[in-house]
């Protein structure tokens, strides 16, 4: 009954829900197709189609989830796949398919539920926008593609849905394409994630060529099943890596792009140019989580060759996982540093997202799938809550986004304030009541016990401090103090506040399934039985860790309060922290110069290269073409001259001469009979003379 996490014996028979699993992404995509054909005035129909299709997907996801849970409760391992061959070429096959296992089930429910709430929210938020129909078309397409990423069992299908997700992200970031900043941000997002995607694709190709199959799980012969992994971990790929490690790193590069890890994080803050529901759905809860999900999906590959202790627990780690951990930890701190000096409400949340994604990656690296995924799930809820709350604030403040022009909103927008504070506390990891505490602590505990190094642990703790600090700053600026804006603010309509309330509830409630007393989430994912026992808390060092992390959070909150408290500095005044330590303020405010660095290196190189190519094109190739054209023109001129002078001239001359000759001959025809007679007589005489002369003997 108790199965170890590293050896699965999957069920082969696919249940009926698994056979119907393809409907979950397909229905929203088809709905998007229909909405694309609608004209702008059909708003209600568009939003109804989109919301209805996602509601249907949610229903199916819940059915699947229940099925998996019931299977887990009975002690059997549930991993059902349905796959089919799409293309044959030679001896190789391109297979597509989907999989239903605990990981996929949880993600399905999360994505469709949070997505549905955000759809409903958008109906209210985008009500004044004239491109309402187009918005829902893209949203629906995104939802379908994201669900496709979740259930995909074939690397190719996953990549295809991955790319569609990237496309819809581009379309939605640049939704207000008339704004040049929005268009530029969309382009930046697409190009930056593309860099990651190239490495991802290389990884897929390598994996396919090594294992011969694209399917992840395929009755024991899938590309990440033990048989293939055994082969891959023994192949050497140079630089001290095995093939498994190299492929894992390539795939991780794709996740780095999509999830905004260092160094490809630069697109995420700029992506805030899109409408707030887009930021909530795509850049907080789901799309950026796709990178984390990908790493979780191919975790067997990432952990291939990991040395194990006698009882099967990990005793060390692989190169891939080490890289994942360090990148995640570094990103967590890096982004948190920048967040403390931003003034746009959404940008703070964006950098916070980047930081939390770093946490998730680090969690995957040090603790395994369950640890990282738990934080992903809780983060989805409270980050969506925070973004939607920010949207409510922006809406209520008449499209104002600068926190220095807000303030005192706890009076004008009470519901938003309460839900936002819940979300903020969850994000900071306020102890006990909020889900964020449990998920973040899970990561910290795993990091503390990481056998390779303690660095990530200290970085993550520091990051928690910073998180608490900047979130307090934000809340103080926005909700406390007094109003510094122009017009009076007002609360948002129910269609926007009800989803906030629902998300706030989950931000608290989800903590329950991840406590050490009842580690349901972890057990579910790792196919262990979950038991409720207070002894869970009695693990050595756990209590100390919980206490210290709580202290760190309180410290951050306190520092934030001390600096920002109930004060509301005027927008022109410098920030309180800036006043105290100006040298500390400037780099975070300038986003730690990463964009500038790219501008100087990569972009400058490309500009130079583009100008070289342009010069080549215009001067060299263009020159050659012009030369050829000139030669031909010259030849044509020569021909023309020849034609005019020789051919035409000769012909004309001949005709003239003929004409003249004819004229001369025609003058014999004088029309005068006597002349004719004369000529006749002369001719006769001549003839006779000749005849006689020639016949003379």
């Amino acid at each position, binding site marked *: 009954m108790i199965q170890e996490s590293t050896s699965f014996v999957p069920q082969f028979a696919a249940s009926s829900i698994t056979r119907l699993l393809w409907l979950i992404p397909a229905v929203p995509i088809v709905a998007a197709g229909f909405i694309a054909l609608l004209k702008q005035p059909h708003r209600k129909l568009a939003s109804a189609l989109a919301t209805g299709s996602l509601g249907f997907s949610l229903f199916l996801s819940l059915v699947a989830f229940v099925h998996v849970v019931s299977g887990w409760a009975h002690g059997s391992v549930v991993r059902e796949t349905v796959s089919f061959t799409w293309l044959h070429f030679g001896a190789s096959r391109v297979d597509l398919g989907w999989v239903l296992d605990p990981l996929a089930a949880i993600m399905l429910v999360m994505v469709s539920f949070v997505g549905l709430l955000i759809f409903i929210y958008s109906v209210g938020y985008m009500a004044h926008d004239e491109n309402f129909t187009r918005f829902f078309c893209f949203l629906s397409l995104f939802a379908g593609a994201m669900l496709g990423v979740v259930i995909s069992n074939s690397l190719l299908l996953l990549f295809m849905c991955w790319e569609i997700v990237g496309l819809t992200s581009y379309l939605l970031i640049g939704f207000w394409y008339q704004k040049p900043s929005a268009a530029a941000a969309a382009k930046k997002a697409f190009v930056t994630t593309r860099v990651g995607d190239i490495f991802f694709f290389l990884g897929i190709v390598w994996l396919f060529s090594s294992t011969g199959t694209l399917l992840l799980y395929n009755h024991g012969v899938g590309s990440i099943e033990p048989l293939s992994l055994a082969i891959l971990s023994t192949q050497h790929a140079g630089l001290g890596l095995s093939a498994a490690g190299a492929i894992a790193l390539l795939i991780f590069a794709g996740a780095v792009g999509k999830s905004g890890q260092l160094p490809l994080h630069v697109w995420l803050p700029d992506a805030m140019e899109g409408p707030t529901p887009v930021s909530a759905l795509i850049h907080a809860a789901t799309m950026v989580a796709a990178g984390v999900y990908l790493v979780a999906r191919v975790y067997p590959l990432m952990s291939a060759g990991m040395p194990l202790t006698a009882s099967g627990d990990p005793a060390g780690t692989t190169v891939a996982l080490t890289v994942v951990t360090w990148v995640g930890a570094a990103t967590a701190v890096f982004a948190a540093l920048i967040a403390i000096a931003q003034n746009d409400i959404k940008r703070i949340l964006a950098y916070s997202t980047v930081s939390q994604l770093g946490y998730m990656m680090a969690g995957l690296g040090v603790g395994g799938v369950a640890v990282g995924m738990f934080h992903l799930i809780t983060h989805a809820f409270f980050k969506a809550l925070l973004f939607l709350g920010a949207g409510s604030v922006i809406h209520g403040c008449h499209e104002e986004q600068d926190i220095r022009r807000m303030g005192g909103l706890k009076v004008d927008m009470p519901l938003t304030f309460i839900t936002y504070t819940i979300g903020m506390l969850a994000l900071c990891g306020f102890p006990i009541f909020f889900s964020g505490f449990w998920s973040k602590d899970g990561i910290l505990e795993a990091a503390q016990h990481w056998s390779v190094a303690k660095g990530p642990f200290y970085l993550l703790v520091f990051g928690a401090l910073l998180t608490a600090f900047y979130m307090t700053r934000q809340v103080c600026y926005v909700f406390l103090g007094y109003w510094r804006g122009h017009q009076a603010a007002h609360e948002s309509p129910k269609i926007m506040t009800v989803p906030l309330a629902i998300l706030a509830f989950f931000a608290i409630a989800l903590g329950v399934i991840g406590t050490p007393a009842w580690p349901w989430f972890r057990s579910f994912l790792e196919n262990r039985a979950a038991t409720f026992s207070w002894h869970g808390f009695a693990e050595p060092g756990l209590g100390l860790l919980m206490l210290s992390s709580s202290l760190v959070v309180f410290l951050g909150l306190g520092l934030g309060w001390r600096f920002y408290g109930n004060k509301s500095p005027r927008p022109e005044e410098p920030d309180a922290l800036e006043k105290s330590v100006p040298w500390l303020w400037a780099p975070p405010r300038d986003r730690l110069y990463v964009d500038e660095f790219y501008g100087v290196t990569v972009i400058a190189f490309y500009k130079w290269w583009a100008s070289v190519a342009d010069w080549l094109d215009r001067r060299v190739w263009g020159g050659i073409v012009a030369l050829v054209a000139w030669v031909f023109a010259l030849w044509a001129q020569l021909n023309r001259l020849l034609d005019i002078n020789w051919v035409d001239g000769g012909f004309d001359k001949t005709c003239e001469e003929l004409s003249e000759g004819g004229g001369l001959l025609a003058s014999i025809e004088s029309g005068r009979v006597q002349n004719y007679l*004369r000529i006749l007589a*002369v001719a006769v*005489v001549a003839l006779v003379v000749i005849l006689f002369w020639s016949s003379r003997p």
Partner: protein
Amino acid sequence: MTPIFYLLAALTLAGGLASVLLKHLVHCALAVTVAFAGLALLFLQLDAQFAGFAQILVYIGAVAILIVFAILLTRGSDLPKGGVFSKTWFLGLIIAAAVFAVMGWAVLASVSAIPQQNTVPSVTVHDIGSALVGRYVLPLEILALLLTAATIGAVIVAMHEKARPR
């Protein structure tokens, strides 16, 4: 070469010369009649009686009259301005002289090659008649056709054209 021959030859030639040299057209017509008469007598002297009489009948009796009629109908009695001879009369003279020279030379050069017989042939009208319907019946018929066509044609050509209604 009897003197009769010389006389008749002179008469003919004189008539011919006169017909081409005289100014008045009527005089030319009369002169050519004289020439025709001279020729008829020459035929008679050559024992071609039928030809001679035919000559008189046809040429003097018809052709000469025709010529007179034509002169009448074309106001030939008026003298043309600018002379009766064309501007290039000398060239015509040269050509005529050349033609005569050639023919004369041909005659004189070949005179010895022609066998000569001096017996008088006896030709009766009966012979001519039977020859016409015998050996020469085809030319006769064709000639009849020709004469018919010529008659009709001459009438049509010379007829006054009716003014065609437009």
